[in-house]
C-alpha cells in the first residue's frame, strides 16, 4: 500500500483578491485547449495570480520556472481542475521540489478526469436538463425554464469550483484525501438515480407540450419513441443518437418534399 502524503501544516488562506482572480480564471481554463498540451496552458493561466506571491514576484527565476512547469500537458475535468489549481498553488508557494510537483501533477490527471466526467457530464448536466424539461412539460414560461436550468446547473458548477480551489489549497499535495469525499465517491450514483427518475417524468411531459393542444397521436409517439430507443441502444456502437436523429429527420423532410 502506498503511504499517504501527510497533510501540510495549516497556512493562512490566499488573499481574497488572489482567490477571486484564480476563480474567475477557472471559468476560462479551457480557453486555449489543444490536442498537444490539452489544458496545460490553462493551468498556468489560473495559477499565475498565486505565483505572483513567490518571493521576489514575477521577474524571478522561481516564478518563471513555476510558470513553465505548470504550462505543460495537463488533463482533467475542467471543474475538478480547481482541486489541482489549489493544490499546485500551495505546492509552489510551499517551495516543494520541481520533481515532486511534476510527479504530483501527473498523478492528479486520471482521477480528476474520470470523477468529473461521471459526476458532471454524465450526472449533474443531464439531471439539470431533465429538471428544466420537466418544468417545460409542466407548462412553465421560457424565462422560468431557462432560469431553472441555469440556476440548478451553475449552483453545482460554481460550488465545485469554490470547494475544489479551497480544498486544494488547504490540503496541498495531500489533496487525494479530498478526492475521497463522499460527494465525489457516491455522488455519481445518487445523481444518476435522480436523473433516471427525472427522465421518466420529464420526457412524456415535454413530448406532450411539443405536440401541442389536443395531444394528437401522443400514444403512437410514445410507442414509437420506445421502439426507436431500442434501435438507438442496439446501434450505439455504430451510430450516435444525434446522427440517428439527423438521418430520420432528413428522411422525413425528403419524404414530405417529394411525395
Amino acid at each position, binding site marked *: 500500500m502506498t503511504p499517504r502524503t501527510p497533510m501540510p501544516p495549516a497556512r493562512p488562506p490566499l488573499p481574497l483578491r488572489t482567490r477571486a482572480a484564480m476563480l474567475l480564471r477557472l471559468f*476560462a481554463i*479551457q*480557453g*486555449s485547449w*489543444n490536442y498537444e*498540451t490539452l489544458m496545460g*496552458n490553462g493551468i498556468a*493561466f489560473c495559477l*499565475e495570480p498565486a505565483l505572483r506571491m513567490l518571493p521576489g514576484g514575477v521577474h524571478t527565476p522561481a*516564478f*518563471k520556472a513555476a*510558470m*513553465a512547469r505548470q504550462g505543460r500537458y495537463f*488533463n482533467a475535468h475542467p471543474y475538478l481542475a480547481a482541486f489541482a489549481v489549489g493544490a499546485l498553488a500551495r505546492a509552489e508557494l510551499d517551495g516543494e521540489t520541481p520533481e515532486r510537483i511534476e510527479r504530483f501533477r501527473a498523478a492528479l490527471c486520471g482521477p480528476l478526469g474520470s470523477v468529473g*466526467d461521471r459526476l458532471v457530464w*454524465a450526472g449533474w448536466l*443531464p439531471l439539470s*436538463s431533465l429538471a*428544466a*424539461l420537466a418544468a*417545460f412539460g409542466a407548462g412553465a*414560461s*421560457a424565462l422560468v*425554464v*431557462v432560469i431553472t436550468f*441555469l440556476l440548478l*446547473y*451553475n449552483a453545482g*458548477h460554481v460550488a465545485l469550483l469554490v470547494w475544489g480551489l479551497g480544498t486544494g489549497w488547504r490540503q496541498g499535495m495531500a489533496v487525494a484525501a479530498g478526492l475521497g469525499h463522499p460527494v465525489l465517491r457516491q455522488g455519481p*450514483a445518487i445523481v444518476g*438515480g435522480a436523473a*433516471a*427518475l*427525472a*427522465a*421518466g417524468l*420529464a*420526457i412524456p*411531459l415535454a*413530448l406532450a*407540450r411539443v*405536440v401541442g393542444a389536443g395531444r*394528437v*397521436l401522443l400514444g403512437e409517439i410514445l410507442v414509437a*419513441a420506445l421502439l*426507436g*430507443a431500442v*434501435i438507438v441502444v442496439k446501434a450505439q456502437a455504430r451510430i*450516435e*443518437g*444525434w446522427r*440517428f*436523429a*439527423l438521418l*430520420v429527420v*432528413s428522411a*422525413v*423532410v425528403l419524404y*414530405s*418534399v417529394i411525395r
Partner: protein
Amino acid sequence: MTVAGLLPIALLGGVIGLDTVSFPQAMLSRPLVAATLGGALVGAPAQGLLVGAVLELIALETLPVGASRYPEWGSASVVAGALYASDAGSAVGALVAAVLGALAVAWLGGWTMVKLRQHNAVVARRHQAALDAGSRGAVLGVQLSGLTADLARGVLLSGAAYAVLVPAERALLTHWSLPEQWSRAALVATAASVAVGAMWKLFHSTPWARWLFVGGLGAGLLVLAAR
C-alpha cells in the same frame, strides 16, 4: 436579409459558442437556453424554447468529454431558435426544418471546434520558446488568442448558417406536404428515442436506475392523464 438583421444572431451565436468549452462553460450553450435566447432576439422566446426542447432531448446523450468530437449545440441552437421564431415559425413543417438545420449546423460546429483546437496548438507551438522560459505574457497571450479565435468561430458559423438557412427553409417549406401533426409526431418520436436511448446508455449500470425511470415514467403519464 440585411447585415443589421444578421449581426445580432451572429454575435449571440459567437458568445454562446464560446460558452460551449472556452468561457464560462455555464451551459448557456445548451439548446434549451441557446434556442430560447435566439428566439428572444427575434421577439418570440416561446418559439425558441419549443425548438430548444426538441434539441435538448437529442443533446442529452452528448458528453463534452475532453478530446472527443461532438456536435456544437450552442451556435446551432441560437440559429435554430431564431429561424423558427422568425415569420417561418407559423408555417407547416417549420419546426422540423429548424431542427434539421440545427443538426446540420451542430455537425459543422463540431468540425470547426476540431480546427480551433488544431489552431490553438499551432499558436502554442509558435510561442514555445517563450512558454518554456516561463513568460507570463506568453501564457496570457496564448490563452487570450484561443478565447478570441473561439469567439470568432462562433460568430462566423452562426452568421453564415443563418444567412444560408433562412432562404433555404423558406424554399423548403413551399414544397412541404406532410400535415403539421404528422411532421411534429415524427420529430418528437425521434427526439424522444434518442433521449431514452441516452438515458439507458448513461444510467443502465446505476443501481435502481431502471426502476426509478419506470417510476418517473408512470408519474409523468399519470400527470398527462389527469390533465
